[in-house]
């Protein structure tokens, strides 16, 4: 806690400094520039879009799943940290749960508390649709984070990652790397097979590989997003395939185990692409001393963006930069490929 306090104190001091500098710059600009014609328009637009300046006080209810995984943990942290940055935002966060009934109960409590806006990352989007509808009917706009509800009536805005795009971009990257290679072989270490997102990631991967007739997918095993399962399944894959050229692993958390299995088997004759964007994976890509050459992002910063959207909704504003009076109905994040070339740019978003 002490760390948090001291760091926020530094931040505010820095903000003050930056603020002074910005004011000085504006003053200077005002003195030298003679293009003051559209100042009025700018001011008008700024009034309708959300910005960092305090506005109407908004209470945001946040209900997420249990943070038993690096990425989910980062989601919770991102949401809380962003909410703290706004003086006009009060965050009411519930304890995370993977139990559908329990999460519904938590959301109902938030509805009863009459929060202004709800941000929900459902453990199971389909199963929580009804409670989303209930909130919307009670006049509380819902920002649906990542795992989508079954009905568009259950949310005002959806923001999330692109699982299909993740597979697609992983496949494209591998395809480009193996372009000149005849009879190239790739294998896939997938995530939890009974999740829709795993199927979408695999579908995107397969579709991308169709563009490269020289590449054949020779093996696929599903792990469980855990280090232990990653180690076990990767060890088996390595036994089953004595030679292959590339591996796509859906998740960097299980990647810790997978990389361990690769080291234990003493293999380094292929390139590996990870998924999600964990810090340890980015560190390894930067160091360049392992088979891991890239990771496809599924950014947990979407939780911070969800808080921004919820605040804008609560204050009845649009989003700055987009020519809208309202916030959009849906936003899909881009699954960028992080390699040694651009890793420095993305390292700050890496989660541990």
């Amino acid at each position, binding site marked *: 806690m002490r760390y948090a306090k001291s760091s926020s104190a530094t931040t505010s001091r820095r903000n003050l400094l930056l603020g002074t500098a910005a004011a000085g710059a504006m003053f200077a600009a005002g003195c030298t520039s003679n293009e003051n014609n559209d100042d009025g328009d700018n001011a008008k637009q700024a009034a309708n879009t959300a910005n960092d300046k305090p506005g109407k006080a908004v209470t945001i209810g946040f209900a997420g799943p249990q943070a038993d995984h690096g990425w989910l*943990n980062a989601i919770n942290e991102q949401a809380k940290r962003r909410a703290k940055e706004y003086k006009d935002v009060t965050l009411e966060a519930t304890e995370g749960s993977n139990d559908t009934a329990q999460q519904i109960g938590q959301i109902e409590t938030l509805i009863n508390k009459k929060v202004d806006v709800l941000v929900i990352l459902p453990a199971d989007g389909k199963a929580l649709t009804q409670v989303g509808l209930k909130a919307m009917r009670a006049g509380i706009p819902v920002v649906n984070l990542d795992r989508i509800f079954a009905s568009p009536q259950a949310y005002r805005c959806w923001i999330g990652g692109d699982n299909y795009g993740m597979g697609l971009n992983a496949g494209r990257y591998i395809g480009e790397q193996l372009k000149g290679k005849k009879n190239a072989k790739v294998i896939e270490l997938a995530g939890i097979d009974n999740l829709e997102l795993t199927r979408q990631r695999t579908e995107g991967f397969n579709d991308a590989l169709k563009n490269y007739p020289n590449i054949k997918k020779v093996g696929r095993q599903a792990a*469980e997003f855990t280090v232990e399962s990653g180690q076990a399944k990767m060890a088996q894959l390595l036994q089953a395939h004595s030679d292959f050229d590339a591996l796509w692993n859906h998740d960097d958390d299980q990647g810790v185990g997978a990389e361990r299995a690769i080291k234990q088997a003493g293999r380094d004759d292929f390139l590996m692409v990870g998924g999600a964007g964990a810090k340890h994976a980015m560190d390894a890509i930067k160091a360049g001393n392992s088979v891991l050459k890239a990771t496809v992002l599924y950014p947990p910063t979407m939780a911070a963006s969800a808080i921004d959207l919820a605040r804008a909704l609560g204050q009845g504003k649009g989003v700055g930069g987009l020519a809208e009076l309202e916030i959009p109905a849906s936003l899909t994040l881009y699954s960028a490929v992080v390699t040694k070339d651009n890793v420095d740019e993305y390292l700050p978003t890496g989660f541990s």
Partner: protein
Amino acid sequence: MSRLRRLADLRNLSLVGVLAVLIAVGGFTKPDEFLSTDNLQLVLTQASVIGVVTVGVTFVITSGGIDLSVGAIVALASVWATTLATQDYGLGGILLCAVLVGLGCGLVNGVLIAYGGMVPFIATLAMLASGRGLALQISDGKTQVVTVNQVLDLGLPDAYVLGIPPLVMIFAAVTVVGWLVLNRTTFGRRTVAIGGNAEAARLAGIDVRRQRLMLYLLSGLCCGVAAFMLVVLTGSGQNTNGNLYELDAIAAAIIGGTLLSGGRGTITGSVLGVLVFTTITNLFALNNLQSDVQQIAKGAIIVAAVLVQKGRSTP
């Protein structure tokens, strides 16, 4: 008596048979990969962590009890031990921590059951819940990556002695000690006795409470050792470690011929049970079968193995 016991051990023949069939299938479908030294080392390594847990669970089930908390204890011990890895504690500190956490959890289970009169199912279910919760709290939901080289090196091929990975040696040692304790010591006889009839055992002068306490301590100890092995294997600690170990260990013990109602237990059978499961997983991965098929087959094999045993034991 000893002839009867030998007959009971013959029960394991059916499992040896299943294992032989699996090996034959493996040798037939993937002759180059399946019977390679690398792959045999892999199968044994993957069996070793759950194997050590199963030896402890076999004792508890033999005494008529149950331990549903083994997976959670493995998770808690591995998470707790790996927090030390970031604070300059070496191999010894990490091992000691894992073992102490295991023993501590076993002690709580044992006291609740033996002296608090709680039903083992409930007491260990409570330990499952709180152990997982505590593991989540300590790790803050994060994967704790080990950087201590002494620990990491134990899992690499350089550490193999005569081609045997250290983890497999630990597994073998635990199995041998477990077999000796169950079959050749007073402790083992008392375990079987209270599993058969606790009241008769008490009248015969056995301190049933103390014996029960010791058994849950033993199970906790095995979990602590397994947690350390898992840290070596994965190079990390995570609150999801040991997921569903309780069910895997109980299933392996039951198909190995240990009676769920207590009074009969076989370490050899349990270890064979673990090997059957690990071999199936390996075989399926080598043949590129998906997890849904694996799960269905695992279920079918549990049913088949128990049916075969039932057929043998009832005239």
